[in-house]
């Protein structure tokens, strides 16, 4: 399958020269600065107000830039970062277990199965400690021990305790910290906040990102906003699968519009399937709920040894249970990384050993730990999670094992960015989950929060100045330029087309169809045959969508169906690109598992000779294969080895 042109190795990450540990310091010391007086003359647009967006908007405003921040939610505090449960990593070594910047860097590269950029990941590990300091200064109530100092816990795939946490609501507390910083700057006038605004296009002037077209979701008004730089911090695209742990509103639209305007989309097929989610209970299901990875510290995962065993779990004797993770991976057992645990669950269910009504679930059993430390002890550790499980499933996990199944959780892919977090479109920066840079093909637990805040607080505020130093004499960008006019017209036409399309099927119908295709063919395991078929199916779905979708209501009002229609349209195109990317990558790595490329034991088989690159795709039109650009991944400081958790 080579229906697209490949252009090799032309993408330059522009990572600074020098020893790994000195790159970032050296870079910060030498990038150009913008003086305080000049910062006042520069406008920056930040789209998205999650961890990355809110922290960036606040920090840039504190520095003196004029910031305009946008979010589609009714308040910046509701961005989906808020739902992260587990924690945030930082190489503080407070527990004296030998942690260091290098170890965090190394774990992240290895966990990502050697598909991330060395210099970026090292910087991430380096600034991780500042994040904790910053957040504590803001009043984030991290867990503490009785001496009043910060507490840590351990997460999957690592051998140190470097995860800071705030019960099961770490994401919420970190986001509220960033939100408070953002609110402070809104109050002071440094940030103009646009709640309930959705970015519907990127505006480029002379090849540079100079503004956006946004829709006021209350009035439906289409607005032009200009700036000297545009920062996208719009999160991941897991909702392409329809069912995911993402919020209902999480979408790829801002990224996709930038992609259509020339920004390369990197590694779109790298999606993380989280192993411990509450299984689908029926066709009505709208989203999936995660059960924190921390449960795998004490829960044991098993299925019956007998196929199609319909006995109640408690009636299945010990010797008729298959603790398949402990069997297959004796060294790490139930604490293997997410991709490995997810695939193993799928393997068992596909082979007919699944449990529950749908047979698409495995048991996560706490009987042993309850025996050991008692129900009260378990409640102290996991009480809120057990309660959450019971609320949703109406089953008491103290008495019967939880039923869990993997679900889409995070997307490692995203817009391609260089070391400065600037995309290939000049002046367009991409932060957090929306970019591709730090997690390779699999993200480790508690690293998403770290990356979002690193990008927003400690990276982009430094790197953006290097670019903006050229703009101190530009003056305000006019919103009356023809580029704005054209972009606005295109947006209006597109919206009008939706409401005037008197089809018959609701938007959700198409979203579910798309989700089914992508989940089945581009989910936990993929093969060339299926991916080719998926591309055909998705293109057919796209045509059907534009012909038959029904969007009631008008354009100039709050119209949630219209919002969804625009997002699903972009997801459909993205789905095809994900399949194209997965098809191109003839290897298995991290979250990308191609059935054709596995070891005899069924483990992922990487091909470092041919695929140690970032696949960055250039948009060519809906239904037209994208053009591949490669960024070769060079590891100067570590050796690429086969991951093993056996």
């Amino acid at each position: 399958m080579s229906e697209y042109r490949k252009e090799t190795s032309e993408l330059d990450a522009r990572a600074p020269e020098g020893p790994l540990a000195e790159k970032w310091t050296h870079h910060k010391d030498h990038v150009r600065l913008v003086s305080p007086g000049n910062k006042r003359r520069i406008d920056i647009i930040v789209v998205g107000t999650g961890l990355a967006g809110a922290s960036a908007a606040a920090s840039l405003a504190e520095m003196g830039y004029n910031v305009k921040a946008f979010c589609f939610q009714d308040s910046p505090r509701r961005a989906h970062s808020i739902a992260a449960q587990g924690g945030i990593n930082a190489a503080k070594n407070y527990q004296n277990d030998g942690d260091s910047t290098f170890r965090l860097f190394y774990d992240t590269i290895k966990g990502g199965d050697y598909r991330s950029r060395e210099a970026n990941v090292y910087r991430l590990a380096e600034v991780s400690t500042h994040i904790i300091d910053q957040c504590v200064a803001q009043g984030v109530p991290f867990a503490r021990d009785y001496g009043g100092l910060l507490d840590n816990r351990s997460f999957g795939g690592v051998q140190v305790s470097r995860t800071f946490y705030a019960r099961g609501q770490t994401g919420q507390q970190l986001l509220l910290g960033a939100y408070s910083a953002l609110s402070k700057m809104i109050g002071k006038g440094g940030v103009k906040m646009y709640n309930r605004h959705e970015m519907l296009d990127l505006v480029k002037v002379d090849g540079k990102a100079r503004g956006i077209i946004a829709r006021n979701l209350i009035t439906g008004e289409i607005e032009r906003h200009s700036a000297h730089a545009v920062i996208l911090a719009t999160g991941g695209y897991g909702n392409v699968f329809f069912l995911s742990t993402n919020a209902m509103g999480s979408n790829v639209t801002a990224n996709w519009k930038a992609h259509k305007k020339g920004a390369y989309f990197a590694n779109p097929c790298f999606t993380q399937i989280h192993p411990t989610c509450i299984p689908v209970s029926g066709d009505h299901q709208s989203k999936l709920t995660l059960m924190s990875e921390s449960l795998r510290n004490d829960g044991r995962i098993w299925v019956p040894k007998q196929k199609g065993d319909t006995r109640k779990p408690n009636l299945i004797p010990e010797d008729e249970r298959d603790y398949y993770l402990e069997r297959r991976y004796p060294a790490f057992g139930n604490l293997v990384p997410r991709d490995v645990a997810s695939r193993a669950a799928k393997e068992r269910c596909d082979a007919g050993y699944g449990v529950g009504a749908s047979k698409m679930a495995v048991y996560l059993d706490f009987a042993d730990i309850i025996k050991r430390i008692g129900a009260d002890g378990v409640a102290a550790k996991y009480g809120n999670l057990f309660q959450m499980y019971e609320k949703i499933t109406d089953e008491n996990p103290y008495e019967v094992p939880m039923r869990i199944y993997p679900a889409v959780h995070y997307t490692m892919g995203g817009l391609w960015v260089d070391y400065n977090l600037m995309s290939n479109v000049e002046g367009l920066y991409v932060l957090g989950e929306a970019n591709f840079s730090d997690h390779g093909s699999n993200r480790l637990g508690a690293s998403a929060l770290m990356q979002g805040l690193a990008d927003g607080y400690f990276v982009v505020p430094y790197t953006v100045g290097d670019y903006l130093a050229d703009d101190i004499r530009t003056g305000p960008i006019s919103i009356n330029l023809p580029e704005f006019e054209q972009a606005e017209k295109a947006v209006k036409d597109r919206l009008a087309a939706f409401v005037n399309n008197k089809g018959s099927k609701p938007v959700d119908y198409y979203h579910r169809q798309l989700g089914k295709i992508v989940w089945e063919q581009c989910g936990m395991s993929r093969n060339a045959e299926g991916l080719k078929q998926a591309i055909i199916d998705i293109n057919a779905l796209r045509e059907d969508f534009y012909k038959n979708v029904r969007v009631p209501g008008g354009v100039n009002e709050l119209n949630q169906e219209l919002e969804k229609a625009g997002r699903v349209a972009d997801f459909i195109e993205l789905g095809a690109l994900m399949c194209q990317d997965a098809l191109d990558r003839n290897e298995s790595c991290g979250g990308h598992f191609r059935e054709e490329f596995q070891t005899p034991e069924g483990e992922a088989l990487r091909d470092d000779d041919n695929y140690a690159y970032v696949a960055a795709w250039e948009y060519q039109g809906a239904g037209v294969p994208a053009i591949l650009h490669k960024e070769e991944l060079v590891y100067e400081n570590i050796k690429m080895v086969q991951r093993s958790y056996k």
Partner: protein
Amino acid sequence: MNLKLKIWRQKGPKAEGKMVEYPVNDVSPDMSFLEMLDVLNDHLVEKGDEPVAFEHDCREGICGSCSLYINGEPHGPGRGITTCQLHMRSFKEGETVYIEPWRAKAFPIIKDLVTDRSAFDRIVQSGGFISVNTGSPVDANAIPIRKESADEAFDAATCIGCGACVASCKNASAMLFVSAKVSHLSLLPQGQPQAKERVLAMVAQMDAEGFGNCTNTQACEVECPKGISIEHIARMNREYLGAAISYSPPKATVGGD
């Protein structure tokens, strides 16, 4: 099961609204309340009607978007949950279910069940923060904080800003929301330097937004999905009294030469 829904429909902020009845059939007890509304909306779209606008996002009880007044209570029957965590097994066959938006002067209705809660944002903007710029603060472990205080601060900080406190309060008072933020920050040593300005400014903004007064009915505490205690209101009352008595604004100083 089959249910009769009575839902508040209102075309826009200035339009008249009314309760409209919709039957829904074949509801699975495993559905969440919002999934039941999804089903209703898909039917409405297929019939050519306008779907019911309602707010929701994370659907796991943490973002604070969902905000329905169900059968006379915010987030419906059940305690410690948001609407998205309410499941249909809490309802009986043939039951009539009333669904309304939050009602408060400070939360004007935008459409159907969607209200504008930006008053909460403005209250936070007036002072709900610690003024520390991004940069190089002291090491996180440089200030030990008593575990008890840290835990209590956390309890206050779990507020999701949904507005159920306002919705449940017969006076549409925002005291629980405001006090949770005041309490969270004042319990921590980092928040102390600004404590007086914070509580004065946030209360002034709360009043300016048109929320009612607290009469200690405790409805907010009962309905809060995160179980935030009215002890925080008492703490804010203390803080405000102390601040109002002792606060003197810093004098303007002339900069150096």
